[in-house]
């Protein structure tokens, strides 16, 4: 099995306002897959569909080789899930929460749970309702990592945590991935964090997955160009044009996707010249990609 998650033609609708449409997604085994998208783009809904917590209207979902929702229970045994809204029982202590959780997972690793509890400085007898937001986040991560899961699904795992705790949590995650060769699906709008860790990126907008590709390609393929004597754009651009803006009478700024150095010649043939090629970081690429996806006049992406 080379893909841990395979989704095809997924559709789901909530009222008139929001829908997941024609969603296709592939998460390769061993990837750390960053699931990016603005608030309300459908990230959490997609995760809930993926885990069988919402019924799809159409399409197929396969997770760890099991068809979801029919066999979601088999997949869930092997998935560590940290939901956006942390799910812990307020009346239990840290130790009781761990013992409660372990009852559901036959491979639960007690030694690992204890090691992480110490590392995260969580007191055994502390009541969950007394935990700070950061401590509760660490406890959820501890539970997910101690399951020896093959797939971790993390929905905004570091959102609202302070930078010190974020570092601790991400450090533990990276060690887990290295020691267990697990696959991680991590949804976040903290783009800079994703930029360090992820090797695949999927971008959601308006209920659709508008891009899915290896991080390296995503980062190296999107460029901002300064073009002089910019040509009109027909259908035959060798790249996808995400946006164009005129700077003055002679110059325009173009943001393109799928850029290769040889493409300079395309401009020269059109009597134009590329004056400068600027690299974008992940956040800028992300913003430009969304802008491109929302402007109907530019080339369709994917």
């Amino acid at each position, binding site marked *: 099995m080379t893909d841990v998650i395979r989704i095809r033609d997924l559709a789901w609708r909530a009222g008139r306002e929001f829908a997941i449409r024609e969603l296709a997604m592939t998460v390769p085994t061993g990837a750390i897959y960053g699931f990016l998208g603005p608030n309300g783009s459908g990230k959490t809904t997609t995760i809930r569909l993926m885990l069988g917590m919402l019924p799809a209207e159409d399409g197929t979902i396969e997770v760890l080789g099991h068809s979801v929702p029919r066999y979601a229970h088999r997949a869930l045994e092997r998935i560590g899930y940290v939901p956006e809204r942390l799910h812990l029982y307020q009346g239990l202590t840290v130790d009781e929460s761990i013992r409660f959780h372990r009852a559901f997972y036959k491979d639960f690793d007690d030694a690992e749970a204890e090691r992480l509890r110490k590392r995260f400085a969580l007191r055994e007898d502390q009541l969950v309702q007394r935990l700070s937001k950061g401590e509760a986040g660490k406890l959820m991560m501890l539970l997910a990592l101690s399951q020896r899961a093959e797939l971790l699904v993390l929905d905004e795992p570091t959102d609202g945590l302070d930078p010190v705790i974020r570092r601790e949590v*991400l450090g533990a995650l990276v*060690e887990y991935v*290295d020691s267990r060769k697990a696959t991680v699906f991590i949804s976040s709008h903290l783009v800079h964090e994703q930029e*360090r860790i992820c090797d695949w990126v999927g971008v959601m907008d308006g209920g659709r997955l508008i891009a899915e590709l290896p991080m390296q390609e995503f980062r190296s393929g999107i460029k901002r160009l300064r073009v002089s004597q910019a040509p009109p754009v027909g259908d035959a651009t060798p790249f996808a044009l995400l946006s164009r803006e005129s700077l003055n009478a002679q110059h325009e700024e173009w943001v393109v996707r799928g850029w290769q150095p040889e493409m300079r010649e395309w401009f020269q043939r059109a009597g134009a010249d590329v004056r400068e090629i600027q*690299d974008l*970081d*992940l956040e800028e690429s992300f913003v430009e990609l969304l802008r491109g996806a929302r402007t109907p006049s530019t080339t369709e992406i994917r």
Partner: protein
Amino acid sequence: MFKSIDPRSPTPLYAQIADRIRVAVASGELSVGEGLPSVRALASQLRVNPATIVQAYRDLERDKIVEMRQGSGTFVAALGADARARERASAAGRFVRQMLTQAARQGLSPADLRSALDRELPESK
């Protein structure tokens, strides 16, 4: 040693990590035979994908800067004086290229840079 890793830089992370180690080896900050952190420890410290560290170490091994010994880790290889000088020269070259790109973006001319360098560098004799 890795404080300067910048995920927003256009230079890929693995290359930044490898470059930093190259400079440390060339300057003697890391000595021959010294062990580098394990992939897991360094990935965790920098919060990067373990594959990024593996790629950095492989690049360094290919260039004979380090040796990866099965099961025991990654160590600084013995580097001849001329190889050391080459590494320093290429590190300096990378640094200057970065500076030139930034300077060009701000509209500074080569002459501006040259006179600034003359002012800022301590007297060489």
